[in-house]
């Protein structure tokens, strides 16, 4: 009886995801015929977000392998399913890899910058515009090498997913004897994730640089992955009939607490970057924030601060809320959604500085990818989600 309610919910997620994906892909196909460049911008945003979620799930899973803890027992099936969407992210990257010259200034301006190779150092450093250092472009930011790197990243990540999600499927316990492997895997993952975020996100503004950027993206991904895990676990829990439980309630509260911890870390990274660049006020750095704090974009930033940090942080302080699956699922979804808003705030102004300009594809393309992601996630989850158990007293 009770297992059916859970299965039915998961099946509904799958159907809903497929429906959204079908409509979204259709609309994107339409947009592609009209304005391919705009669609690609929106698509990049969608790709980056869902890739962050997948890699975030993998990262949190590896952290669990290292640290252990009660929270992981509940989270593991969800994290595994989230990480196993990695091949989807790899596929979704193909259009970006093929259209790099339409997206990235460094891929388009290959001839333009050769002329500035002999620019004086003063020009190179004082101009905040798209001055791509010639040697960086020759050795790092070029299409061939960027594509090769992307292949390398995805091969590694898919291998990690195979190693950590497929083999150790059975049993509620943390598989033993893989801690050292998990440590190496986590180190490699953070490193590749850093360079991937430089390649795919930071390089949208060549000449702009921030050493915390990769860590911030990785942290955002971990937060989004944990938030969707918490949301999924809590909403399934809220749908199990009374007298049974999918997740032991304190464990669910632990997930809420961990989400709050990640939220604080993410906000700490994001604020550090802002404060240091603000205080330094160097033209080559502050231009990135100036673009994002003008012409209406500032409202995105404000929404990300208030809705993405202040409100969920305040709510997650409450112990009652963390014990209420419905509320917890709601707050986790808020955190998840606001990570998207934050990412949109960091990505879109690179394409459209000045006036705020949000196109309908900015919503549709990420939704289409999200529909696919959700459908895949749900179909994997249907096979892994544990059976609801009768409620025990000691929980």
């Amino acid at each position, binding site marked *: 009886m009770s297992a059916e309610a859970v299965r039915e919910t998961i099946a509904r997620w799958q159907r809903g995801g497929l429906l959204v994906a079908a409509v979204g892909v259709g609309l994107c196909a339409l947009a592609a015929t009209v304005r391919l460049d705009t669609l690609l911008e929106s698509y990049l945003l969608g790709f980056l977000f869902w890739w962050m979620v997948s890699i975030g799930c993998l990262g949190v899973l590896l952290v669990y392998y290292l640290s252990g803890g009660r929270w992981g027992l509940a989270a593991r099936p969800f994290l595994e399913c989230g990480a196993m969407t990695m091949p989807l992210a790899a596929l979704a990257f193909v259009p970006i890899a093929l259209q790099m010259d339409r997206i990235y200034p460094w891929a388009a301006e290959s001839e333009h910058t050769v002329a500035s190779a002999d620019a004086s150092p003063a020009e190179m450093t004082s101009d905040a515009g798209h001055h791509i250092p010639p040697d960086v472009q020759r050795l790092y930011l070029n299409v061939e090498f960027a594509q090769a790197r992307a292949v390398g990243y995805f091969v590694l990540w898919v291998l990690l997913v195979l190693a950590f999600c497929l083999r150790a499927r059975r049993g509620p*316990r943390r598989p033993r004897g893989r801690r050292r492997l998990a440590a190496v895997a986590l180190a490699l993952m953070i490193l590749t994730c850093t360079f991937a975020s430089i390649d795919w996100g930071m390089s949208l503004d060549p000449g702009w*640089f921030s050493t915390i950027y990769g860590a911030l993206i990785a942290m955002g991904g971990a937060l989004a992955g944990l938030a969707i895990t918490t949301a999924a676990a809590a909403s399934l829990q809220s749908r199990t009939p009374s007298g049974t439980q999918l997740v032991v309630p304190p464990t669910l509260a632990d997930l809420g607490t961990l989400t709050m911890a990640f939220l604080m870390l993410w906000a700490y990274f994001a604020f550090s970057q802002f404060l240091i660049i603000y205080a330094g006020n160097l033209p080559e750095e502050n231009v990135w924030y100036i673009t994002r704090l003008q012409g209406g974009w500032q409202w995105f930033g404000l929404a990300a601060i208030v809705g993405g940090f202040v409100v969920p942080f305040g709510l997650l302080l409450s112990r009652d809320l963390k014990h209420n699956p419905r509320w917890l699922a709601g707050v986790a979804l808020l955190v998840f959604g606001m990570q998207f808003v934050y990412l949109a705030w960091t990505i879109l102004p690179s394409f459209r500085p000045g006036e705020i300009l949000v196109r309908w594809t900015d919503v549709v393309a990420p939704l289409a990818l999200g529909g696919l992601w959700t459908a895949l996630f749900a179909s994997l989850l249907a096979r892994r989600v544990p059976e609801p158990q009768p409620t025990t007293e000691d929980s």
Partner: protein
Amino acid sequence: MAQSGKNLKHGSTRQQPLVGDYTFGSVTDKISAIVLRGRTPRNWYFGFAVAFLLVMVLLWSVGYLFLRGVGIWGINMPVAWGFAIVNFVWWIGIGHAGTLISAILLLLRQQWRTSINRFAEAMTLFAVACAGLFPLLHLGRPEYFYYLVPYPATTGMWPQFRSPLMWDFFAVATYATVSLFFWYVGLIPDLATLRDRAKRRFSRIAYGFLAMGWRGSARHWQRYQRAYLLLAGLATPLVVSVHTIVSLDFAVSIIPGWHTTVFPPYFVAGAIYSGFAMVLTIAIPLRAVYGLQDLVTARHLDNMAKVMLASGLVVAYGYLIEAFIAWYSGNLFERYMMLNRAFGEYGWCYWLLIASNIVVPQLLWFRSVRHSVPLLFVIALVINVGMWLERFIIVVVSLSRDFLPSSWGLYVPTFWDWATFIGTIGLFAALLFVFIRLLPMISIFEMRELLEESKGEHS
């Protein structure tokens, strides 16, 4: 079922127990005897004598400093922050492990913190004391340090709140206060134990005075637990905030090598790294001298080594990303900064730093290394040196080469720089020697709790 429950708790059955074969009585005897009954080991006298000698060196060099001013140090323009700031950051970083162990691991319900938290907290206090000296001495006119306090002065002087140096004052003062309370509150039940067990009248009065009338009633315990958890909650953000603000001292400026966005988390990781290295540096000799191998067990050392490895990898990430972005930015000054770090006048420091902070600690991946006490001790010492070098490179190398070649200059530490630094090591050691002689270095009642819990686990 019980078996699987145990596995869940500890992850692996291969791990040794956290505490040896003790009863409530014997564990209390063992720890309190170090203070009350055991003969003070000859090593203690020797160690304290050396440390005391170094404290005299500190007093001598500080006295001379007051007489002559900061000109006795190697600082100059452009390198206006020399050893004083290097040592400040180094000492304050060391303190962080104590707070992490006592507060964060408490909130995370990590039982292995229990036998190491007391002396780690003491280490925090003494390290903060050493750290706090340096900015004051560096002021040149330390008698005016109270200008940092925002009080309604008739002079109309008001601190510059936009300066992180100002935030530092508050951060460090808060840190010292909370750490002191946390440590003292944790000590109260043990002070009462010492009071009850002391034979001499003076000891009874002294420990009784400090125990503040603790009788161990249920109400006392309930209030104690609440206060302790509250203090742990207060101390937790300090693990991050203090070193973040220290990093902002550098990062909000625009000096290449200082102004970089990764500094806050990278400094915090570095602080934990050096702090755990220092905890090991202290714990290993202590357990050998006082025969505490079954209280500070191989598993404690193993766990600390793992934390050290993890935080060391974060630090390595910081070095890597700093170097990569310096190149990636194409910024002339950033690139020059990296080249100068590696191949300039102080290049040897950089390579020594890489060797001691990144290369050597990779040995900790191996279980056999983590279980070899002498090797662990050597690695901890190497990391202590490495983290000091890191701060030296950040402070001195960056300042020595800023934007204008006409204002470049080198820094050479003088005798007085070294004397002051070594003097604070003496101060730290002397305080530590006094602490282990007069107070229980391991929390007695928490060990009893741990015994009770591990007993339940085995049944």
